[in-house]
C-alpha cells in the first residue's frame, strides 16, 4: 500500500492552528516535534527567544493515504503562505 509523507516546518505559534486544520482536513494522525531551530527564506530561527512566548519552529509529520493529500494541502498551504513555513512531500508505505 502506498502512502504519502508530509513534512511541515513552521512557527510554534502557528502550531495549534495548523493541527486544527489537519484534523479538519481528515489527516489520520500526525506527530509534532517542537523546539526546532533552522534557517529558511525568513532568516534564522533560534531558541533564544524561548523565554518569551515567541517560540521557535515545529516539525510536523503526517503520513496519509494518497487520496487524503489534496484536502490536507488545501487546508495547510494558505497558513504556510500567511505566516511563513515550508512543506515537503515524499513516498512511504506502512511498516
Amino acid at each position, binding site marked *: 500500500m502506498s502512502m504519502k509523507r508530509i513534512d511541515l516546518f513552521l512557527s510554534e505559534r502557528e502550531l495549534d492552528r495548523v493541527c486544527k486544520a489537519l484534523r479538519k482536513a481528515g489527516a489520520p494522525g500526525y506527530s509534532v516535534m517542537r523546539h526546532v531551530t533552522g534557517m529558511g527564506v525568513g532568516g534564522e530561527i533560534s531558541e*533564544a527567544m524561548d523565554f518569551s512566548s*515567541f*517560540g521557535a519552529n515545529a516539525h510536523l509529520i503526517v503520513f496519509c493515504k494518497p487520496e487524503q493529500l489534496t484536502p490536507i494541502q488545501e487546508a495547510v498551504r494558505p497558513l504556510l503562505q500567511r505566516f511563513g513555513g515550508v512543506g515537503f512531500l515524499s513516498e512511504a508505505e506502512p511498516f
Partner: protein
Amino acid sequence: MQSSLVLQNLLSAPVLFFFLGILAVLLGSDLEIPSPLPKLFSLYLLLAIGFRGGVELAHSGLGSLVLLTISAAVLMSILVPISSFVMLRTRLDPYNAAAVAASYGSISAVTFITAQSFLNVLKVPFDGFMVAALALMESPAIVVGVVMAKLTGSNVAERDGEQAQGLRWREILQEAFLNGSIFLLIGSLVIGYLVAAFSPAGVEKMDPFTEKLFYGALCFFLLDMGLIAAQRLQDLRQAGAFLIGFAVLAPLLHALAGLAIARLLGLNQGDALLFMVLCASASYIAVPAAMRMTVPQANPSLYISTSLGVTFPFNVVVGIPTYMALVQRFIPAG
C-alpha cells in the same frame, strides 16, 4: 555625582552578570542556558514582581495619586507608539514601523526590576503601585501597534485572502490581554492584592520565594539576557544606522517625557525614576510574541534586535543612572 551613580550601577551584581553574558558571546564561549530554563526565570520574575506589587498595592490602597499615575502610564503607552510610528515611518514600511513602535510603547519588566534594585542600593524608597502601572502598559501598546499596522498597511486584505477582511479584533485583544506574560503578571498582582487583604499570613509564607530569592534569580536571568542581547548584536547590521539611532535616542526622549509627567504628578524620587524607566524601556517579551502572530509581515529581527540588543543594554547600563541623575536634579527629595 552622575559618574558615581554609573559606577555604582556597573558594579552591582545584576549588571555584572549581564556583562558576563555579553562577554561570553563576544569571546566565543559555549556558555549556554538551555531552553526552557530562561523561561523558568522569566515566569518566576513575573510571578514574583506581580505578587509583591499586589501586596504593596493592598497596603498603599488605591488613592487618587495612585490612579492618576497609572492613568498617565497607560496614556504614555498609547502616545509613545503613535509618535514613534510617525518617526519610524520616515524610513520603514508600515508593518515594521508599527511593530517597533509597539515595542517602545510597552515596557521591559527586567529593566524595571533592575531599576528597583538600583533604588534599593541607593536606599531611595519607591511605591509598590508602580508595578500596577507596569502591568497595564503592555496591552495598550500592542493594540495601538496592530491597529496602526492594519490601517496603514494597504495590501493586507489582499495578501491574506478572504479570511483577513478588516481587523481581527478577537485575535488582537487576545494577544494584547491574554499573552502569557501579561496574564501572569496581572494575575499575580491580583493574587498578591487578595492575599494581602484577606489572608496576610500568606504574604509572609511567600516571602522566601518571592522576596528573598529574587535578587539572585534576577542575576541568573540577566546572565542569560546578556547572552541573548549579545547574540542580537549581529542582527543590527540588518537594522541599520537609523534604527540603532532610534534605539538609543527614543529611550532618552521618552524618559524626559516621563520626567515631566512625574514632576507634574508630584511623584517622589523613587517613583519618578521608575516612571521614567517605564517610558524609556521597550518590550522584548510580550510585544514580539504578539507581533509575530498579528503582524506577520514585520521582520522579527528588526524589532527584537533594537529593543533587546540596544535599548535594553543601554537602559540597564547607562540609562538608569542617567535618569537618576536627572531625577536628583529636577524632582525634590522626600
